[in-house]
């Protein structure tokens, strides 16, 4: 039996219900991915599936049930068009993660168009399964998890439909209910696999390339870049403090350090060697950062870290050596960029100064030979008045504070000599303008200085008691080498002190476009947002962030080690066996419940027979109940209840819905209880 027979079964043509199931499944699998694709590709892929559904319907009405075959040359055309779409949309790339996903998205539509046999149907189910996990490459939010649920259900339903011979198939509602039940039955196994299946500390092959620009800080800073970033509500990272959080004015999260200046754009210098950690001291802050994927190497820490971050991707598991390092200019960077939600514990001592390395890089005081002449002139004249470095810096800060500088999110464009135009003409700017101008003024005076970018501030979410740092908290400040040490100066604080104390929204003039979140105030909407964010944080921490390191923590708690691996395997095998046994036991229990219905019915029949009214061999329960009701009208209600519930249990569909089934058995049992014994029945014939 037949490989022959079975292979024939797979080559059986698809029926119309099967095509509909396949179409519904494919669209459900495509929809979660669609928002992450260029509009053209999303539309094209879904249209192909819809086209096939329409064709199948037309075929059934026009060709007596036979399904048309799509000419293969059109398929080649479609495939070429798809390749062209993808190439154009991804800047000439056809190889790589994102173009591949886009191509798969269209491919399922093309394959569906030419699908005629069940074998094709199987292939489509497999492709759709894979398509289900692709949206998670871009987004692992709870919502993203929610929207794949219908697709999973439909996938099971399609498998069910593919296995059926009959042309009409089973009612879809029942099929989906059953698939849902089976999925629920599989949940214990799935949960166990999720917790115990080993994760990787480092990827097997190349990390994802990002074709879409991620918003976040980078290693360059041009005028306007941070103010643009500040309009974004998206979360940069969340922080759980072991103790109370530091005061707002001390929340400087150090990120990229920018040293090189070309007259307009600040950029980082390649770093060699290791920086020195700040000495440990009492009153340190200990906290855990949950960093959103930034596709950049920076890890953020409060100034100044006294230890290297303890990544949950533990360092000792990385064969390539240290995973995290501190550069000489005290940036914390990872070897690979942060491509997934990353958690690390960090210790910092709050300080705005630290001793410099033995030799100061000459590039720290370099400026382009030309450009920004008025700034240069101003620096020279001020330097004449303040020969002492500290006095000079104080004078520059005082200038920012006293003169009519405006802190604004909508700074004017500065086409040429941006520092000059900012300092002398426009005088309106965001933190990057102040930091840039301040640093240039210091360098013009011969004081080594650099721009530090990062985040300043952070909001405590009272639900969950953690801190949210958003892109809108992005900030730029300066660092100057004064008196043998590096010291932080924040010119923005001189212009708009409330920015540092209470956040950007409070520092901006009225009417400025601020991020939606900052505008919410303290109303219920803000509360709702914070509640949602705390749920999101828990999700990130426990589901999305369940990585190699978290798993090892769990294993450590459960005392799972390499040494007792055989035991663990044995226990896991036992657990799987136990799961199967439990499931079969539940099914057997249901069966006994069904048998209980028969036993009750037979008891009732026996009692009536003893009372002189045996059931005729061909008599159905309802007819029998009618006859019994005629003889004993006072028990008519009980007879009807017995017959109806028994008939529903044995011949109805109710037996398949557990709750209804149990209710019917209970009704039957109660009704049989009501019936008097045979003797009193016989006596009570009227």
């Amino acid at each position: 039996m037949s490989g022959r027979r079975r292979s024939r079964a797979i080559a059986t043509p698809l029926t119309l219900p099967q095509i509909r199931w396949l179409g519904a499944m494919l669209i459900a699998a495509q929809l979660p991915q669609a928002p992450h694709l260029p509009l053209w590709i999303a539309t094209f892929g879904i249209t192909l599936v819809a086209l096939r559904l329409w064709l199948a319907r037309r075929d059934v009405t026009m060709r007596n049930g036979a399904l048309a075959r799509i000419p293969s040359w059109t398929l080649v055309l479609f495939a070429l068009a798809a390749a062209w779409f993808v190439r154009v949309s991804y800047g000439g790339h056809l190889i790589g993660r994102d173009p591949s996903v886009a191509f798969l998205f269209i491919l399922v539509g093309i394959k569906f168009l030419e699908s005629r046999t069940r074998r094709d149907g199987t292939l489509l189910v497999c492709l759709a399964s894979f398509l289900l996990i692709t949206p998670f490459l871009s987004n692992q939010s709870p919502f993203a998890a929610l929207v794949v649920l219908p697709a999973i259900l439909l996938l099971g339903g399609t498998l069910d439909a593919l296995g059926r011979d009959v042309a009409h198939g089973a009612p879809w509602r029942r099929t989906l209910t059953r698939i849902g039940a089976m999925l629920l039955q599989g949940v214990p196994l799935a949960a166990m696999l999720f917790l115990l299946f080993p994760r990787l500390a480092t990827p097997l092959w190349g990390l994802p390339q990002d074709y879409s620009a991620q918003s976040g800080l980078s290693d360059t800073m041009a005028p306007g870049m941070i103010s643009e970033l500040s309009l974004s509500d998206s979360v940069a990272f969340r922080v759980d403090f072991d103790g109370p959080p530091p005061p707002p004015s001390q929340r400087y999260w150090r990120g990229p350090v920018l040293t090189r200046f070309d007259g307009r754009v600040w950029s980082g210098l390649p770093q060699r060697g290791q920086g020195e950690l700040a000495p440990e001291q009492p009153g340190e802050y200990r906290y855990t950062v949950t960093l959103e994927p930034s596709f950049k190497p920076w890890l953020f820490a409060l100034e100044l870290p006294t230890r290297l971050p303890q990544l949950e991707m533990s360092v000792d598991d990385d064969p390539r050596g240290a995973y995290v390092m501190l550069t000489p200019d005290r940036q914390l960077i990872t070897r690979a960029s942060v491509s997934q939600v990353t958690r690390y514990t960090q210790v910092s001592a709050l300080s705005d100064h630290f001793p410099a390395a033995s030799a100061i890089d000459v590039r720290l005081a370099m400026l382009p030979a030309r450009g920004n002449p008025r700034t240069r002139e101003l620096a020279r004249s001020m330097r004449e008045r303040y020969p002492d470095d500290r006095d000079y810096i104080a004078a520059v800060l005082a200038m920012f504070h006293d003169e009519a500088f405006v802190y604004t999110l909508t700074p004017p464009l500065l086409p040429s000599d941006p520092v000059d135009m900012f300092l002398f003409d426009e005088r309106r700017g965001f933190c990057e303008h102040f930091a840039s101008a301040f640093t240039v003024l210091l360098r013009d005076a011969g004081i080594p200085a650099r721009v530090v970018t990062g985040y300043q501030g952070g909001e405590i979410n009272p639900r969950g008691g953690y801190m949210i740092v958003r892109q809108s908290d992005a900030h730029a400040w300066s660092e100057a080498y004064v008196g043998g040490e590096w010291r932080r100066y924040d010119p923005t604080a001189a212009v708009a002190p409330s920015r540092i104390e209470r956040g950007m929204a409070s520092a901006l003039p009225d009417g400025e476009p601020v991020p939606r979140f900052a505008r919410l105030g303290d109303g219920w909407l803000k509360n709702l947002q914070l509640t949602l964010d705390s749920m999101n944080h828990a999700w990130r921490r426990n589901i999305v962030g369940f990585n190699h390191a978290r798993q090892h923590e769990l294993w450590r708690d459960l005392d799972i080690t390499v040494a007792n691996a055989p035991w663990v395997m044995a226990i896991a095998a036992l657990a799987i066996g136990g799961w199967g046994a439990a499931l079969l036991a539940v099914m057997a229990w249901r069966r006994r419940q069904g048998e209980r219905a028969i036993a009750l019915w037979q008891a009732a029949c026996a009692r009536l027979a003893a009372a002189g009214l045996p059931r005729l061999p061909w008599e159905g329960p309802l007819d029998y109940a009618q006859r019994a009701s005629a003889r004993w009208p006072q028990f008519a209600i009980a007879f009807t209840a017995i017959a109806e519930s028994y008939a529903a249990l044995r011949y109805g569909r109710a037996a398949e819905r557990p709750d209804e089934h149990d209710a019917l058995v209970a009704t039957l049992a109660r009704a049989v209880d009501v019936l008097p014994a045979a003797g009193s029945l016989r006596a009570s014939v009227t």
Partner: protein
Amino acid sequence: MIDVPGTSNVIASASPYSLRAYLARQRQRIFRHAPHDDRPVVLRHSRIYILPTRRGLALIGTLLVMLLASLNYGLSLGFVVTFALTGLVAAALLHTFRNLAGIEVKPLGAGETFAGGRLAFALALDGGIVAREAIDLGASDGESIRVDVPAGAVRTLSIERDAPARGRLALGRVTLSSDFPLGLWRGWAYIHFPLAGVVFPAPEIGAPPLPAGMAGPDAYAAGRSDDADLAGLREFQHGDPLSRVAWKAVARGAGWYSKQFEGSGGGGPVALEWSALPSTLSAEARLSRLAAWVLAAEHAARAFALSIPGTALPPSQGRDHRRAALTALALYER
């Protein structure tokens, strides 16, 4: 049900403790090569095998690829989806098992046919209280048939096998299988009932007319020819051909009667003798001709006697007699 003779009972004859006997027992337990299922079989876990179908293998392969992708990109939700589908696949395994477990298969009997026809074997499937869906049943060479057995119902079904030559035809090993519910797993069980039917020799086409009857009147029933007239009814006697039963009377509830004819037929019982056939005919050709004559005699409602080497049937008529004669022909030297 007819027992199949000649199947050596390995298990009973060998010493039960030898390794050979042990291996033979295990082989029988696994493959059920010998027809030792004497009683109705209830499918239990020891008899049910389950392996993934091609579709199942394809999906499991896809799940592995999804696992690899989730591992590499650190997609926690990828793991969630992959493992949820794994749970579904595993639950489907249990449902496939449950769909088969507890089915009771009863052998009902074997039919009869002429060589070149198809022999039907009747089995009953009792699903018990659980609804059984999409159960495939098939003999080792035949096509399988698919049945659903609703909860509490018993389904009777017949499996047909090609019957190319006369003799006994055993049902052989029956495979009962199902890939319900998702087509990812195929569960099957082998059942080997000692069920066999008789394949009669194919009647010769264009056989010569019946030989003349023996002297004397037909003792059993009046002969009948096409121009015979209905003479009346008499009480039904065991052995009267069913074609002569007065069915209208039975339907009225008046009792069982046989129609009596009166006509020019005449002649005593026909003697169908192997030895009387031309010696040029081969054994099979003789059997074919005798089979054709048995049918002709039956059609003409004439009693006949049959004698072939090893078997001699006294003159008689009726269904049982016809079957006995055809069976004797079928089993000649078999």
